[in-house]
């Protein structure tokens, strides 16, 4: 997705119920957006300053609030319609994505000369390869400062 002011969406977006994070690519920098639905904080990392990407493996994939709402609604409907069995189905809807996501989480950091900047929007191992493929070309082209 390309926005009107030339930012291209990078792989990985975190859309929590309140907290959000995303990463965007511009001509000379990456824009990291963190914050809430009502307030955004911006951090820019310029390609020329990027020394590499560090991937830290481990942790769980954060469960989406959509799944939590879905599980809660199915538990509520199930409890009314099926009693205890319905509650079990709702709990199952919550446990399955938690179990599937266990151990597949990761943290991505951009290494610069002054420290590492965490990319909070990337939390899954398969997002890292897409993210690095998009960023690597620009970072290699940039003249190091």
């Amino acid at each position, binding site marked *: 997705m390309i*926005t*009107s*002011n030339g*930012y291209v*969406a990078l792989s990985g977006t975190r859309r929590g119920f309140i907290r959000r994070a*995303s990463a*965007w690519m511009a001509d*000379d920098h990456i*824009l990291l*957006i963190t*914050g809430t*639905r*009502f*307030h*955004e*904080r*911006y*951090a*820019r990392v310029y390609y*020329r*300053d*990027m*020394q*590499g*990407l*560090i*991937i*830290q*493996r*481990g942790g769980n994939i954060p469960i989406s609030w959509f799944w939590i709402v879905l599980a809660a609604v199915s538990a509520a409907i199930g409890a009314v319609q099926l009693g205890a069995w319905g509650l079990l189905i709702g709990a199952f809807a919550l446990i399955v994505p938690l179990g599937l996501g266990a151990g597949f989480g990761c*943290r991505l*950091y951009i*290494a610069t*000369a002054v*420290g*590492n900047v*965490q990319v909070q929007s990337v939390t899954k191992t398969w997002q890292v390869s897409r993210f*690095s493929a998009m960023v*690597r070309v620009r*970072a*290699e082209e*940039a003249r*190091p*400062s």
Partner: protein
Amino acid sequence: MSPIGCPQCGWELPPRMFESTDFAPCQICGAELSLLPFRAAFAPKQELRSADMARSEEEAPCFYHESKKAAQSCSRCGRFLCSLCAAEFGSEVLCPDCLVAAARSGQDARLETERTLYDSIAFALAVVPAFTVSFTIFGAPAAIYTALRFRKRPTSLVRRRRWRIWAALLIGLAEVGFWVFAIAVAVTNRQQT
């Protein structure tokens, strides 16, 4: 090769991590890490030496440092700047004063570090109370006020569509219309009885 630290403990990553992208544990904290190094990681470190910046009699001085020679000029005000004062900013070179002025004015999006999304606030004030109906008596005026007061404020840096602010205004007006109608009906009924 520039030193890169472990994101967990800050300890410098060993050189073997620059050669392979395989995961390896940090020697100190044990965090499983993989490094994808870029060109800048292998670039020789450039240091600003005071001897290189020292000014001779014939050379123009930096506006801020009399003893240092000017290396560039500010793209906005034209002041002569030494290597220490010149801030490269995209295609421009700015002096510290112009950089601060640009950040304060808020006219340059590249210097913005945060934004409040008034369009999302107005939209939430209009929509969320609608689930309870009764709370719209407070939410609708607040949504209309927020939408009108902040309608010209910029939205997100990457999301430029302004439909939320207009949707909030319309929904807020509809909710106010509903309350006016409901009160009118209640008053009419009371007068009839």
